[in-house]
């Protein structure tokens, strides 16, 4: 497994950008790009008040595959990705990914790819609860 991968986790407890940044800290890195996906108070202008994430039992293995591929070929110094499951409030962090590299271009490109591939390939689902009482599984209605 690429030793650039410093932290991969899917957990019920609150996420921390400090934890992720500490995980990718490296004296040879000149730039760290980080992305935080947070719970928005609306979805297509429809007010949301609560969100619940569900992950497949093997989701972490899928996340590892995504992380490995981001590290291949790219000059990634360090990488971390953590995803939250369970109930979240507005403003809570649902996912935090970060990549450190010698230069900012590699860090940005790899970080963007990491979040894009995570969203496309890791079996995680979002149950959105609207203030009007309705709720739906995002992407399945």
């Amino acid at each position, binding site marked *: 497994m690429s030793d650039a991968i410093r932290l991969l986790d899917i957990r019920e407890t609150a996420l921390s950008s400090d934890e992720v940044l500490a995980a990718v800290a490296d004296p040879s890195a000149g730039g760290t790009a980080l992305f935080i996906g947070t719970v928005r108070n609306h979805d297509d202008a429809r007010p949301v008040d609560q969100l619940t*994430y569900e992950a497949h039992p093997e989701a972490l293995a899928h996340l590892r595959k995504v992380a490995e591929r981001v590290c291949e070929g790219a000059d990634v110094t360090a990488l971390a990705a953590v995803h939250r499951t369970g109930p979240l409030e507005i403003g809570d962090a649902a996912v935090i990914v970060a990549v450190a590299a010698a230069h900012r271009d590699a860090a940005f490109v790899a970080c963007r790819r990491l*979040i894009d591939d995570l969203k496309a390939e890791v079996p*995680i*689902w979002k149950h959105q609860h609207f203030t009007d009482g309705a709720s739906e599984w995002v*992407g399945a209605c």
Partner: protein
Amino acid sequence: MPEVTIRYFAAARAAAGESTETAQASSVKELVGAVSADRPELARVLGICSFLLDGERVELTTPLYDGAQVDALPPFAGG
């Protein structure tokens, strides 16, 4: 005819009203057909699902063996 299990997640579980179910099916397609019979909402959701068998992505045409466990995965919405 193999006896197989289907595991539902997220919207599929909501449509099926249960987490798992067993059925007689020799392919993923047959399994989907068996469990969707007269359950239009489940049929709709399974129609947009991807399927896993032993951790690998499989197609509708993939044959099933006795005791196989197929996971029905609605479109992902992580992040």
